[in-house]
């Protein structure tokens, strides 16, 4: 016998007059291998075509479909109903502006984060179209890629107590991103320059170390290590800033 699933889904369309926030229930019979991508599309196609949610690659690569699933931020496309009880509660990811129902505006948030971090390679060297590429150790390339795998899904922000209390906190995704640039030999920024960007309460010193981010990251990024690494580096830089003779 297939299970009869109950989906309790947050509904609110800010664009529709008369819409008010609340939970609505939908029922669906479970089929083999059912995941939330298929389930939510079925509900939309057969029960309520106005239901808003975000999927894009539906393969766990693009990060579009993060939502709170039975209390935990996760990628919906990767979540099988078999892992969940019969009652499935879906809420939009907190910390981002609501577009409608389960859809939130992660694009504006991450664009702003990347602007604040100045998250691009800073170098005075011009690209020489006639020269071969600058050599790099493969291991360094792989270490950068390890951190570059962040898909900006926002799960770490949704799971972060600081981010929920202060909207200007940049969160683990940002600290991981800046750690990626610190690792990259092509980026010529000094620790002092990195400190200007993340050596604040909006940056690394706002982190309370609860590490919800690390627990929920769908890409298993080493966020705990990176937060500690950036904090240590920026802590030393803070000392250096006030005690010019201090050496690491």
């Amino acid at each position: 016998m297939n299970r009869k699933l109950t989906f309790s889904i947050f509904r609110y369309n800010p664009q529709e007059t008369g819409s008010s926030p609340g939970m609505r229930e939908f029922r669906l019979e479970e089929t083999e291998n059912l995941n939330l991508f298929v389930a939510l599309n079925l509900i939309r196609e057969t029960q309520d075509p106005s239901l808003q949610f975000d999927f894009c690659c539906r393969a766990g690569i693009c990060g579009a479909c993060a939502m709170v699933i039975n209390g935990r931020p996760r990628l919906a496309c990767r979540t099988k109903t078999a892992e969940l009880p019969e009652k499935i509660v879906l809420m939009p990811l907190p910390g981002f502006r609501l577009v409608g129902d389960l859809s939130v505006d992660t694009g504006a948030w991450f664009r702003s984060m990347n602007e604040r971090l100045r998250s691009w390679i800073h170098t005075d060297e011009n690209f020489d179209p006639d020269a071969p590429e600058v050599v790099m150790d493969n291991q360094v390339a792989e270490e950068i890629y390890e951190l570059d795998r962040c898909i900006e899904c926002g799960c770490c922000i949704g799971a972060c107590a600081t981010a929920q209390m202060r909207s200007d906190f940049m969160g683990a995704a940002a600290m991981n991103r800046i750690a990626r640039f610190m690792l990259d030999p092509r980026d010529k920024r000094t620790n002092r320059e990195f400190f200007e960007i993340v050596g604040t309460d909006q940056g690394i010193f706002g982190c309370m170390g609860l590490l919800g981010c690390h627990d929920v990251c769908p890409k298993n990024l080493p966020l705990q290590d990176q937060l500690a690494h950036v904090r240590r580096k920026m802590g030393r830089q803070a000392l250096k800033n006030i005690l010019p003779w201090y050496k690491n």
Partner: protein
Amino acid sequence: MRIIYTDLLCIGAGLAGERVAIEAARAGFETICLSLVPARRSHSSAAQGGMQAALGNCIKGDGDCPDVHFQDTVKGSDWGCDQEVARIFADNAPLAIRQMDHWGVPWNRVVPGRSCYYKGGEKLEKEESEDKSGLITARDFGGTAKWRACYCSDGTGHAMLYTMDSVAVQHGVQVHDRTEALSLIHDGERCHGAVVRCLKTGELRAYISRATLIASGGFGRIYRASTNAVINEGGGQIIALDTGVVPLGNMEAVQFHPTGIVPTDILVTEGCRGDGGTLLDANLERFMPHYEPEKAELASRDVVSRRMQEHMAKGLGVKSPYGDHLWLDIRHLGREHIAAKLREVNEICKNFLGIDPAESLIPVRPTQHYSMGGVRTDKDGAVYGLKGLFSAGEAACWDMHGFNRLGGNSLAETVVAGMLVGRRVAGFLQEEDMKVDTALVRGELKKQQERIDILRSSTSGEAPFEVRNRMQDILMDYVGIFRNEKDLHLAVEKLQQVLLSAENLKLSSRGAGACPELSLGLRLSGMVRLALCVAFGALERRESRGSHARDDYPARNDRDWLVRTLAFWPGGRALPRLEYEPATKVVEIPPGERGYGGCEVISAES
């Protein structure tokens, strides 16, 4: 209603769109990218295995150069490509990849010394040279003479897109995400911008731009089963076709990738086979060497997909509740290799199939993957028929792929075409001004507002989701890997009926704000028109070339069909008008044998 002015409007913010935008922004022009999703979620991010560029750094790529890359590309295209474009592409790919490196892509590098690799099931050894240490390395891909696919593990598209977007942020390229272009504003001669619907609020806006670029990716989602992201519904091709004056090129050239997983149709990279993975049948026997003794699993995608289909038709597929499939075997590559070089594949297998690919076989079958066809442009990316309109990437038919794209050539195309078309666009913006015709803009806005109003108030008609599903099923059933006159006739007939339904829809929601039912309702008739361009183009092309395989015309016919289909759709017609132009003006390599695929050829001289 809001009107926004800009120098360049890019419709699409994936690799191609942002690369063009960056070139224009660096030349000092104001640039806005529209995107259905946040830029970094664009489908470019899902490209896994690699980008082809003839660097020749790794030992198995020794002696590689743009000439060899060019030859592989032309053969891969089954001589359907524009050879001048393929030449420009191959010559510029090394430069484009080095620029991406300069911007921050963490390409995997050459590690000197001895190491093992697999070819088919066989374990072999290679030795990388000391003097190439630390330069960008490459892996093997299908249809290539050398190892040429440069990569970052198997998240190459992701790493490139994040780097590209970071450079876009650096240069102040604006991205208006969650927006959808509903139509181009034009006077029949020049493009003036686009009418756009905000997918956050439902608001309608006009963007007035001196230059407009279509870089919205492919249209795979006209098929029910596709590896494409759900956003790949052909929005850019639709608004181009709707002008009536812009043709779509070679829409019948649709690529099926050999390894979509079953079920869910998610892609696992060609890198699996490039790194030595094999395809097995129901008896757990390797079958590709039997069909393709030379290339085996690493023939071009069209050929491997056809052979897989053929093999399953012999009853040698694996039965499953989701239909027949075959197995992809990467177990012998070892856990360490899979964890380092095939990370996404590893994750996809674990999360979507619940298997460990180091221990279990991966169920795969050919799945719709890429659109070689698209908005027809000249070699500079300027679109046929409308001045001020450009196109690049998968959305375009620039036409370096002809009737089959090689793996790794799409990522390469996005950044090479992006760079070159970007230069052309910047040059155009230096020279060309435009008189803004407010009546034209208001007229187009009004037209689109009326479409929305009519759809929202419609009291009879079918539900958009049902009509879409019907269209998708017709393509699956009648316009697949192997095609024939009878099926294609049926497809065209049925799609024409679906088009009538798609033009007469009824919403069951109120269609307020960013309502997804309204969004689909607005784009559905356009999707069906694209489907008709594919089916009708395929019906009319009475030969087999690359991915277009006709049971009833099995030979490649260079005498009559060395041409590119151009599909126009002037208003009020029930079918597109097809015209043809020579596939290539410049012939560096005359049509010949591909060296795989074993297709009969009717030569031009016969």
